[in-house]
Each structure stands twice: as C-alpha cells, then as structure tokens.
C-alpha cells in the first residue's frame, strides 16, 4: 500500500537521509559499539558452527583424564568427568542463545504492542493495567522465573514462553512511556481527525516512532535475559544434563575451582564476552539513535 502522502505530512520528523543508514553511520564511529557488535557476531557464529569444529565431542567422558590442566590436546583442560572444557565452552551457549533470542523477540513484541496500545488508549483501563504492571515488577524477577520453571518444567518452549512473558512486562512500561511522548503530537491528532482506525494509528503512526526505543530495549532485554537464564541454569533449573551449558558448567565445576580453574574460566569467559558485547553494542546503539540508556533502572 502506498503511504507517501502521510509521510510527507509529518512536520516534526525531518530526516533527509535513510534513518537506517544514518544510525549505522553513527554506530560505526563508536569503537566500543563496533567491538560489542563483533563480539555478538563471533558468538552467533560459534553457536551456529561450533559442533563442526570443536576438537572433542563435548559429551564424551573419560575418567582417566579427569581434572587435567590445559594442554595442547585440551586447550582448557578437562572437567571432573574428563570432558574437554574448551569444546563444552564453545557449544555451551547454544541453548542459552536460542532461548534468549526467541524470548527477547516475544518480550519486545507483546510488551511493545501492549505498551503502545495502553499508552494510546489511556484512561481507566490504562491506569488499572499499569497498577498490575507495577505490582508485577515489584516481585523479585528471580522468584517469578524460578516459580514458573520449577512447576512447568525446564523444556525449551516453557523457558522461551516464561522469559518472553516475564521480561515483556518491563517492556510495557518503556513502550508506554515512549508512546505518551508522541500521543499528544499533532500528527496523531491529524490521524485521528482524518478518522484513521485505531489499529492504523497504533501500527502506522505510533509503532514506527517508538521503534527506536523498542530496539534498544530489546538489546537490553537480551542481556538481562542472558543474566536470568544462566542464573536459573546455575541454580539447576536450566538446561537438563548432559547438554553442556554455561550456567550449569560454572555451577558444577566450581567444586574443582582450586585444582582446575579453567573448567570454570572457560564458560565464564564465553558468557562474559557475550553479555559485555551486547551491552557495549546496546549503549552505542542507543547513542546512535539519539537515546540515552543510562537512565535505565535495574530489573
């Protein structure tokens, strides 16, 4: 459908250039942003291809070579059961990354649309709904996640839906706040005066204008979810064994921290580089879009 007439009418948004190209230009100038982006890309490639190139089968146990220090055969040594730590660290992020990415998409979608809708509708419904959102956000996040997962089980789809739902609630607030900044603008009034359908206003007018906030929130959400998912996994509510997973590897190998610290360092390095990468990228991305991320509250 053609919409150029509407685009041309918006007086508040004067962008001479393609916004994507402009954002990318800004982002490219930030070394920390590019460093973060490279870390993310490396992690995605490793997650995708690691089963093809890891030197050892990450599941094979061999009690004869248990707790070995790093060597040329085992770059990061072996764990208590004689499994290769390097191979396990490479493969150990696959489930985590898949779950958190899918859950982020769900969270940003439902939280974003919900927030825009309630910000746009306003009134009683919005007020009551926001009270529930505030109340929900007051309950410790770890408790909510643990409770749902401990009862519904740790299958992948349960985790994806649990994380997508829980983290989407905080997105509602952010999307709503961003929407409230726009709702009073003339172009929304004009759209209303034209008799545009509510759905059209939400999807065509509001969504594109709060999309930048949503994308930054998505990046942040991804990082918080990694923190949440690996914490659950660390506590034993994550990926069931024997699948290698960073959180559970750190938890199990902590017992041998004094004799074979690399069994812990391997997954710690992998997890840390991914989280730091996402946050460096998110910071630079927010700056490139002209948003300030440092006001974000801990969730």
């Amino acid at each position, binding site marked *: 459908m053609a919409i150029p007439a509407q685009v041309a009418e918006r007086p508040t948004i004067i962008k001479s250039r393609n916004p994507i190209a402009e954002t990318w230009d800004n982002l490219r100038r930030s070394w920390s942003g590019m460093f973060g982006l490279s870390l993310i890309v490396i992690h995605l490639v490793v997650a995708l291809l690691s089963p093809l190139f890891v030197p050892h089968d990450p599941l094979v146990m061999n009690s004869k070579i248990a707790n070995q220090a790093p060597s040329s055969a085992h770059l990061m040594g072996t764990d208590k059961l004689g499994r290769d730590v390097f191979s396990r660290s490479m493969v150990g992020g696959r489930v985590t990354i898949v779950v958190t990415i899918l859950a982020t998409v769900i969270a940003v979608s439902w939280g974003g649309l919900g927030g825009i809708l309630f910000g746009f509708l306003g009134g009683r419904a919005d007020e009551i709904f926001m009270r529930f959102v*505030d109340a929900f956000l007051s309950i410790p996040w770890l408790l909510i996640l643990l409770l749902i997962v*401990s009862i*519904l089980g740790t299958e992948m789809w349960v985790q994806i839906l649990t994380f997508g739902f829980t983290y989407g609630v905080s997105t509602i607030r952010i999307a709503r706040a961003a929407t409230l900044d726009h709702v009073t603008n003339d172009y929304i009034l004009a759209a209303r005066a034209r008799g545009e359908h509510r759905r059209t206003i939400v999807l065509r007018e509001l969504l594109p204008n709060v999309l930048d906030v949503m994308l930054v929130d998505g990046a942040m959400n991804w990082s918080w979810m990694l923190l949440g998912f690996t914490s659950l996994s660390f506590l034993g509510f994550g990926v069931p064994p024997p699948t290698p997973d960073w959180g559970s590897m750190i938890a199990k190998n902590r017992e041998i921290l004094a004799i074979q610290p690399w069994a812990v360092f391997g997954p710690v390095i992998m*997890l840390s580089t991914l989280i730091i990468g996402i946050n460096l990228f998110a*910071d630079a991305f927010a700056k490139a879009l002209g948003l300030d991320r440092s006001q974000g509250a801990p969730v």
Partner: protein
Amino acid sequence: MFILIMRRLGLAVLTIFIISLIVFFGVEALPGDAATAYLGQLATDESLKALREEFGLNKPPLERYVNWLGDLVKGDLGESLSRKKPVTELIGNRFRNTAVLAAAATIFAVPIAIVLGVIAGLTRDKWPDITVSLVAIISMTLPGFVTATVLIYIFAIRLAWFPAVTLISSDAPVSQLLPNIILPIITLTFVMVAHILRLVRTNMIDVMVSDYVQMARLKGVPMIKIVFQHALPNAMLPTINIIALTIAWLVGGVAIVETIFNYPGIGSLMIHGISDKDLPLIQGIAIILSAIFIVINLIADLLALILNPRLRTARGH
C-alpha cells in the same frame, strides 16, 4: 503536600494488595496445587488428601485467598509445608541477615558510586570517563554468580584472605556475621556501584551545562565550589530514586549471591523454598520482598518530595 503524601501512601497500599492478588492467583493458576507440588512423585491419593486436609487446601480458592490475606494483615504468613513451622519464624533471623548484607553493601556502594560518577561526569568522553563507564557496564551486567566465582577464585583460593563460604547458622549474632560477609558484600557492591554511578554521571553532565553552573563559572567561582555546592546537590536529587531501586533490587537479587556463599539470608531461603516446592513459604517470601521493594521506593519518593520543592506542585504521578 499532605494530600500528595497520602496519595503516595494509598498507592503503595493498593500496589501491595495487587501483588497479593498476583502472588496468590498466579501460583493458583499454575497446574497442580501446593500438595501435588510438594509431594511430587511420592503423591498417593491418601497422602494428597491428608495434606490438603491439614492445610485447608480443599476449600475454594477465593475463600483461601481471603483467609490468607486476613492472616497476612495480622502478620501471619501461614505454615511451611517442608519445615512444618510458621513462615514468619523461618524468615525472622534470615531477614535480619539479608538486611545486614544489604545495608553493608549500600554503605560501601553509595559513596564510591558518587565519587566515580562525579569524576566520570566531569571528564565526559575523556579517558577517566571511558574507563569508569566501561568497568561500570561490565560489573553491572555480569551475573552475580560470575562475579562471585571470580572473586572466590582470587580472594579465597589464590590469596586465601577470606572464606569462600559462610559456615554460620541463621541465628548467629551480627558480630559473627561480619568477617564472613566481606566477599558477598564486594560482589553486591560491584553491581550497585555500577548502576548508581551511571545515573550520577548522566545527571552531572546535565547539571554542568545548565545555566546556573555556566553563570557561576562566568562569575569566576572556583571549580571545586561549583561542583560541590552548585552541581552535586542537584545531580543527587534524581539519584535518590535509583539508589532506592538498586537497594530494592538488591533485596530480591541477593538470592544467588547468598546461595553461592551459603549465607543464611532470605534469598537462599527462597531458593530452598523453590527446590522443596513449598508454596506457602514461597508466597510468604514473595509478598515480603515485594512489600520491601514498595516501601523503599515509597521512602525514596517522599524523600525526593521533601528535598525538591518543585515536585510538590507537580500533579499526578
């Protein structure tokens, strides 16, 4: 002013009431009930019936909610399934322990965060700012168990300065807690400092370009006086709320740190409750931790209201 304070109070009470709804009916909506969750594989028809009878689980949900809420108002959180003790008794000392931990971390974190935040804000985009901001991002986003594990490796295993785990009972006196909680405090301080300093930095940057600071500069007021007399008090105002949010986060988020260090606090009790599927205990902890979150935020709001006259005339939220 009075009306505004009463409104905030009313809102806090309403939110705690809604939390009780979410906590109770959220748990209710999950498949099974406290009895099937607790007994799990061991459940037989008789044992389920007996347990339901004992804890009144066979009544309709609404009736149980009203009873639970009534007891809650009286300060009774019901009885733990796994430990056969009143939930309030189980929480008692552990709550104090967590409060000691959180208070100690806050006392360390706030001054460090303000100093680093001011330095970063004044040297915007120069190397002190870049270093501080980078370290802040890293320590803010790494999971607590990662920071704790690395700290344990360095300070407990390599240097052997502090114990790796606390071996004390939950009712030990505070003086006995102190030597054991240095590593947990450092772990929590890392995260808190990062969150607070990022906001102090942003506020500092905003304030330093404001008209009155420019004016003071033009008048030739010494820089040190500008920072401490003009800029910092104004930069600190919005920080009160983030400090409250961080403390509130801390009360809920210490669970993992407490578990790692085997610290007998409310967070590790929560994890035990989850492992045992002890729903009455979980509900009790959930409502207490959420209420603390609300109360701390309420205090911060009121404090900001007292310190910032402009907020008093602001209407609405």
